[in-house]
């Protein structure tokens, strides 16, 4: 067990006083040269890296209106200072969004602005030094890119954009993060984050077919590479292996089965996640995503549906059309891509599914809005559909549902503490402490309503909660998939 104390839950949420340096020791493992090479970056700190970092930073800013505006516009009003779960959980002031941005802004100012060039002390501009680089590595790996700060900033400054840029600069000078880069490398090589080759994938899915047959007596299929299927399902590879993710996958399969819509997975594009977003790498972002276009064309599908995964849904919803579109070869009568929740909700609306809520009567459920779904995407055709649709699905599947406090859900949702490429054991202290605000809110509905099931639609959230719930005295299996609830409630072959 790691050497730190789990933060105490209070009667009410408290904004902690600043305690400098409490997380200065927290940094993830640095990527080894072979891992760096697998994602196209230098293996160790390059010669002349200070200059190269500064040039790269300038290049990134000139290519991004967001960075251009965000780096100029902050007035240090302080509105964001109490919004980051990592600040709330660690008290380290460099985890306040504005202070995190300033780690990079100070360097940008020094080299690219009048005030920073001629009056560096006045505006807090700094030279690019090894200390600065180390500080970047430490604190830009304490941002889960959840965008909560961007909701509350009067100019919409999004620290996620800045931390992506910082990580991209670090990668370009040879200081990459092992966890994210290793995973992206595996995807390039094998097609999914887990490095699960096709035979193992087929094995797993056959096993699932048997399990479902045993449990329900129904032949629910989990097809792979089935040409001519109607739907290509792109889902996080954690759904194939991890608990409670796998219950979600079983749920999707049962929904497809009940709706009578043919579907398939792809062994070539067996991953919805795209960690390239976390490291701000455009090339990798495109390279990972383009496998999906390839698979959709090869298999001749008409629709693409995306499984439960937060950042993957952001990439799919917000970026796919840009990165791997146009999708003129798919059926335009359906949104491209479509979230599995949109898919299921649509079927429920049309009365195409038979759901028995009593199957979930042992559960009192609450729903955790995953940050990338909440603040970087949408479901359905109205703004905020991403909050309505998953809840409607849950309510169609369970009798007991209670939301957590309003300022901790919806667009104000707190990150699980493990997003943005931080879901690694070398950052477990950060992850536990960063989960504090969510755990605080959860505790409230546990105490008031006896909630015993935390539903989520994100592979990272599910893994993160499995890990951190026990630190806060909850059972690890309290976290589950929304489609795990669907899986329990759905009545197969009900119409026969």
């Amino acid at each position, binding site marked *: 067990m790691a050497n730190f104390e789990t933060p105490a839950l209070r009667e009410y949420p408290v904004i902690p*006083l*600043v305690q400098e340096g409490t997380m200065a020791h927290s940094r993830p493992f640095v990527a080894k040269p072979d891992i760096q090479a697998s994602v196209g970056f230098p293996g160790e700190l390059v010669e002349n890296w200070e200059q190269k970092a500064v040039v790269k930073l300038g290049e990134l800013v*000139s*290519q*991004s*209106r*967001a960075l*251009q*505006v*965000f780096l*100029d*516009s*902050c*007035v*240090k*009003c*302080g*509105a*964001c200072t*109490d919004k980051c779960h990592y600040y709330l959980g660690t008290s380290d*002031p460099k985890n*306040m969004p*504005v*202070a995190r941005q300033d780690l990079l802004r100070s360097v940008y100012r020094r080299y690219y*602005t009048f*005030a920073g060039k001629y*009056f560096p*002390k*006045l*505006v*807090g501009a700094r030279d690019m030094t090894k200390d600065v680089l180390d500080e970047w590595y430490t604190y830009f790996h304490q941002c889960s890119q959840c965008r909560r700060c*961007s909701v*509350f*900033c*009067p*100019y*919409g*400054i999004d620290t996620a*954009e800045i931390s992506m840029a910082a990580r991209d600069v670090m990668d370009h000078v040879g200081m990459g993060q092992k966890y994210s880069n290793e995973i992206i490398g595996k995807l390039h090589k094998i097609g999914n984050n887990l490095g699960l080759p096709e035979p193992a994938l087929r094995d797993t899915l056959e096993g699932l077919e048997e399990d479902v047959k045993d449990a329900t007596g129904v032949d629910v299929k989990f097809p792979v590479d089935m040409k001519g299927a109607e739907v290509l399902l792109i889902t996080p590879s954690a759904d194939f292996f991890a608990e409670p993710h796998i219950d979600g996958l079983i749920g999707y399969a049962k929904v497809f089965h009940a709706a009578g819509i043919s579907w398939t997975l792809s062994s070539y594009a067996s991953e919805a996640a795209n960690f390239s977003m976390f490291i701000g790498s*455009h090339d990798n972002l*495109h390279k990972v995503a383009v496998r999906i*276009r*390839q698979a*959709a*064309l090869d298999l001749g599908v008409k629709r693409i549906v995306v499984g439960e995964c937060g950042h993957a849904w952001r990439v799919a*919803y*917000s*970026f796919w*059309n*840009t*990165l*791997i579109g146009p999708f003129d070869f798919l059926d335009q009568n359906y949104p*491209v*891509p479509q979230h599995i929740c949109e898919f299921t909700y649509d079927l429920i609306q049309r009365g195409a599914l038979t759901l028995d809520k009593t199957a979930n009567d042992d559960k009192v459920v609450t729903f955790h809005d995953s940050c990338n779904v909440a603040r*970087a995407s*949408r479901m359905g055709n109205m*703004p905020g559909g*991403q*909050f309505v649709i998953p809840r409607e699905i849950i309510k169609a599947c369970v009798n007991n549902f209670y939301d957590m406090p309003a300022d901790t859900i919806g*667009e104000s949702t707190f990150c699980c503490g493990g997003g943005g490429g931080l879901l690694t054991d070398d950052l477990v202290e950060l992850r536990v402490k960063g989960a504090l605000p969510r755990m605080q809110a959860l505790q409230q509905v546990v105490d008031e309503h006896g909630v015993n099931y935390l539903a989520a639609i994100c592979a990272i959230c599910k893994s993160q909660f499995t890990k951190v719930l026990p630190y806060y005295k909850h059972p690890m299996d309290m976290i589950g998939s929304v489609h795990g609830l669907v899986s329990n409630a759905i009545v197969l072959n009900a119409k026969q």
Partner: protein
Amino acid sequence: MSLLTVIYALLFYAATALLAGGLAYKIWVYARTPQPLKIPTTPAPTTRLGVAVRMVKEVTVFESLFKSNKWIWLFGWVFHLCLLVELLWHLRYFTEPVWFFVPLLHWFIVFTGFGMLAGLAGLWARRFLVDRVRYISGPSDHLMLALLVGIAASGLTMKYLVHTDVVALKAFFLGLLYFSWQPLPADPVLLAHLALVSILMMVFPVSKLLHAPGVFFSPTRNQVDNPRERRWTAGWSAEIDNSKIGRPG
């Protein structure tokens, strides 16, 4: 023509040129820089009209700030509103005949100078009293507040304590506009007020005051949430060519 008049005349020409030129340059940079991906903070409007409404709410009632922190919102909003009324009120020194709506502001102008000061005092107090805001405040943040407080205080001093010759002052500014220079009243408080204002104008395009044009260009606020409906490309994303990928044969 006194040396003082010449100095201030040149100062205001320089300040105006720097403000206008600097802002125009920055706005050009913001407008020219592509935003390759769709990144609106959602829920976001799905139409251009919706975005316009979101932006109007953002810049008139500071919607996001209101969600965030009621104290900062109160002080910041009062300050900006009072500043706006004061700026419009000051048009009477630059227009002849005075634009029709300016005299109507005299009901408000009784409060606005004090409103500015009160708002600034609140914001400045936070920089000392709230430990988080103290931590993020740098010298330039304090100087900017000092500058604005100086402008408001010198203005109020002239309004209530040491009056200046406003007729001559107006003649000076109209003279600047029509390139027919007129003498500037040599009142110390007025000179201080004008010097501070010209400093503010000059630092505007190289300081955090760029939040004013910046907010309009902020992609998280001004993008339409329609990435599935319309393919978005700009900058590096416009160079992506997927036409060779995956087509059989």
